[in-house]
């Protein structure tokens, strides 16, 4: 089989016309966008995140409705919750799925060896990380927000007429639901940055899960005066302030929470960028 031998026309093409190719940030973004959607794992992760957000939100609303009809008030997990808190009940699961997706987008390049192809095409390297963040963040934001609003919409019908029912026009509802989406976007970008920093899916996921789920529990073991100083600034708690409809007095304000979580994101992303730029691929 000699399909290899390039035809004379391609030889001429080589000798004469050189198309004006050029790497630009926008094109790298286009590339990462296409790469993101061309993997089955992306669709599975986004589907799961959406499913968790909506399903857990709806289940929470149904549980709340039961508790309200049985006891006249919310108990246990849901004590003190309102329609927004119930709608965002699935955010704990959604954050894991989207965070892991973020880790895989970066670490997957290393585990498969694709990174060599990627960096050969974009030897300046950093545009690749920025482009990945610009894909993963907004997509997680959209999916997270859709999940939050859908869970809220369905849940609102279930708990309508109860004291905890809220409508979209109620104060802080839209802000909280969008805050939930934004939190998920930042978690996904943190996952991405961890993947770029550690270059390992297992390592990235482990650190992500530890940061989001284990560290808050560990900090709770600290003496309470310390805990109160540290706890609000943890990524998960700062994020919680972003989507809580009425933050507790010890928590940060939604804006401060966003600022703190954004700070964490920038920090980890800078670490990932440093490793990408400095270390041999």
């Amino acid at each position, binding site marked *: 089989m000699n399909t290899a*031998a390039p035809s004379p026309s391609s030889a001429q093409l*080589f*000798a004469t016309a050189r198309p004006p*190719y050029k790497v630009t940030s926008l094109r790298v973004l286009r*590339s990462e966008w296409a*790469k993101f959607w061309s993997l089955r794992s992306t669709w599975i992760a986004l589907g799961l995140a959406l499913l968790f957000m909506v399903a857990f939100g709806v289940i929470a609303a149904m549980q709340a409705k039961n508790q309200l009809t049985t006891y006249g008030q919310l108990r246990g997990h849901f004590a003190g919750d309102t329609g927004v808190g119930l709608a965002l009940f699935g955010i704990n699961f959604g954050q894991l799925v989207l965070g892991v997706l973020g880790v895989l987008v970066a670490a997957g390049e290393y585990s498969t060896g694709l990174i060599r192809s990627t960096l050969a095409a974009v030897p*300046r390297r950093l545009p690749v990380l920025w482009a990945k963040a610009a894909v993963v963040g907004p997509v997680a934001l959209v999916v997270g927000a859709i999940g939050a609003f859908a869970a809220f919409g369905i849940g609102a019908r279930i708990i309508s007429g109860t004291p905890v029912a809220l409508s979209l026009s109620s104060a802080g509802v839209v802000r909280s639901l969008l805050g939930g989406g934004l939190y998920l976007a930042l978690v996904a970008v943190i996952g991405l940055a961890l993947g770029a920093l550690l270059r390992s899916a297992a390592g990235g996921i482990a650190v992500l899960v530890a940061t989001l789920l284990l560290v808050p529990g560990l900090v709770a073991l600290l003496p309470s005066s310390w805990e109160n100083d540290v706890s609000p600034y943890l990524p998960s708690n700062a994020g919680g302030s972003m989507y809580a409809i009425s933050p507790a007095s010890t928590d940060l304000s939604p804006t401060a929470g966003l600022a703190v979580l954004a700070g964490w994101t920038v920090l980890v992303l800078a670490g990932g960028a440093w490793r990408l730029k400095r270390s*041999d691929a």
Partner: protein
Amino acid sequence: MIESRHLTKRYGEKTAVDRLDFTVKPGGVAGFLGPNGAGKSTTMRLILGLDAPTGGTAHINGRRYAQYAAPLQEVGALLEAKSVHPGRSAFAHLMGLAYTHGIPRRRVEEVIELTGLQAVAQKRAGAFSLGMGQRLGIAAALLGDPATIILDEPVNGLDPEGVRWIRDLLTSLAAEGRTVFVSSHLMSEVAQVADHLIIIGRGRLLADTTVHDLIRQAGGDRVKVAGADPARLRELLAGPGVAITDRTGSEELEVTGLPAREIGSRAAAAGIALYELTPVPVSLEQAFMDLTSDAVEYHGSTPLARTAAGADDQAAKNGSTA
């Protein structure tokens, strides 16, 4: 044109590439040879800027790889075959690379056709055989229609048809005026396509030569001559650049530096009957092994002797595979 100047790469204590100097000129295939672990892949990674050199420079047409606005148009590279996400189709993989440069879809389809991947272009790359993976890597290397092509062990694991395909491809790419730089640990493979040979061992340049010179150096232009009058024959053939050895009591001569044809004509002109006129076959593989094991022996007295012995085994192994 690829220029390596004092290129050096150290990983901790280990020096993978040691002050490497060589130039690959356009319009030919240059073979990059050395036993496994000699530093070939590292050198190629340094050229592409995937690894940062500890010292020295590697330039492509006068600039570092990373300085090009459209690097894929400058250099196409096949490093390890599996530089692909197994979950992505061949087409999606190539498209992902193409987007970064604004390379049109038409060109992606072109390289898919060129590498004979049409039938599997929509299949997940993870399901590809080694040969298909290699073709996909080459498709990616050709994507930007680059002036310089770097291939690391392209025939590794390919079936005979695949090997011939690569060979034809390399020859035609060079014929189009491109710079082709191809590594291998098998001399027999490279000698068929390459003229220029760059041979390294343990990170150091052992030889920057041509196939022709290497054959000569290995005593490849030796001819065994047996004739009626060895003494006269000897006089007849003697001249600058010609070496003649004989064995006492034998009418056999070994002549280096004259082609068999010339020897035959001279003998005929002088009326000397020849009983035997045989060019002595030389194994390039042997020449390559001699070269690489020489380097190993040269370092044998240093504290690195243990590593050297390892490289020697490796060279021997390569020889037996050939």
